[in-house]
């Protein structure tokens, strides 16, 4: 899980957490980088500017994410999902 995080964000996360931390509490969104096509739809619709997208690398900037799920809805592939509890799957 931590492997998606940008290095500089790791120190501000509380240790020993079951969930990564989002702005509104625990983080429920997960991007599966192996399935991603790096198309940018999710970045364009994210109201919080919480997605970092490089040439072939993508991750959520956890402290900005509000779990609003708009990135999931706009994804042309089934790449982003609510994790753990499986709350939403397209």
């Amino acid at each position, binding site marked *: 899980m931590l492997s998606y995080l940008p290095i500089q964000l790791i120190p501000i996360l509380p240790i020993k957490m079951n969930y990564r931390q989002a702005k509104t509490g625990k983080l429920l969104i997960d991007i599966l980088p192996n399935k991603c096509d790096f198309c*940018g739809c999710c*970045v*364009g*619709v994210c109201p919080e*500017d919480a997605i*970092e997208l*490089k040439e072939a690398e993508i991750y959520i900037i956890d402290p900005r994410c509000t779990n609003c799920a*708009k990135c999931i809805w706009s994804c*042309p*592939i089934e790449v982003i999902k609510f994790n753990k509890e499986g709350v939403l799957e397209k």
Partner: protein
Amino acid sequence: MKEEYDIIVVGAGPAGSIAARYAAQNGAFVLVLEKDRDVGYPVRCGEAISREGLEAFIKPDKRWINAEITKFGFVAPNGKKVVINLGKVEGYMLERRIFDYELAKTASVAGAEILTRAYVNDLIKENGKVAGVKFEFRGEQKQIKCKIVIGADGVESRVGRWAGLETHIDFRDMESCFQVTASNVKCDQDALFFYFGKEVAPEGYFWVFPKGKGTANIGLGVSGGVGKKRSALSYLNNNLENFFPTANILTQVAGGVPSVVALEKMAAPGIMLVGDAARQVNPLSGGGISSGMIGASIAGRLAAQSIKNNDLNYINNYHKEWKKLRGKKHDFLDKIKDGLFNFTDEQFNNLIESMLKLPEKKRTVGRFFMIALKNKPSLLKEIAKVFVV
């Protein structure tokens, strides 16, 4: 690479290259930063462009033209189709792998420098004005100052947000797309085909665009509201099975089209946005190459002139010039889009039926939309102005 530039362009798509070319031609020192390894790849595009839109910026060249378009076809949910003959070559199918590179070359020839694998991740701000960019290049964080940044970073644009411009797209307005390029496809090599219907591509359309030698770009877009329930990819797989079961897939790609009118504010002190980043896409068709190049040509020129005249506020004319050239037309196309999105399958069937009843000569694209909006008389006059010759 210099220590400082007049103008830094972020993104080397068609809009970025044209902005860079026009800025360099007007005397500015220009640097283009592109995150990908190569200009022109991957291609997230159906690759259709109007003749007029292309020829305004570059002479068509056989090396990157796959097909010449003389017809439009519309297919109703019940399978009936109407073909509109345009009478002459009115559009082209591009090979954007080469085309984007050739456009970048014209910028380079005009004097711009281009740096690939440069991922822009922040802006430098000074005295309430954008004054440069920060970027990652070969594992190192760097920064370069400039007088004006032009954000041409596509649908995934973040540059504008960092400058405080409101650029995020409502998810319902984002057409979520998936496209394959495939061979062994039976289709007219001189026609663009659009399919409509709730099964095929709700709140969007399914397209088949010829790419020469029995190949085609086959793709679709659905709105985020639809994508909430089912992904674009799964709609496309269905359509491929139903319409082109023998197609051999060559490449596949996901993508997004911001189907909205351009941003209300496309510039702020020290920054301008162009192309998809400014949401300059034709909101009805989703075509963004030519209108992005138009926006970029205005922005590139104004940016260079404002530096030459030593008056950075001069870039504020951007919005006015855009409005004059494209803005009004886009406002109107956006209204038609809203109308079409709400069509039921039956209404689409009736629309195609009414077109088929017309004698062939009277079947024009304008008339197609005119019939489509028969129920909205308030729009009729405006439609006539735009489409009917």
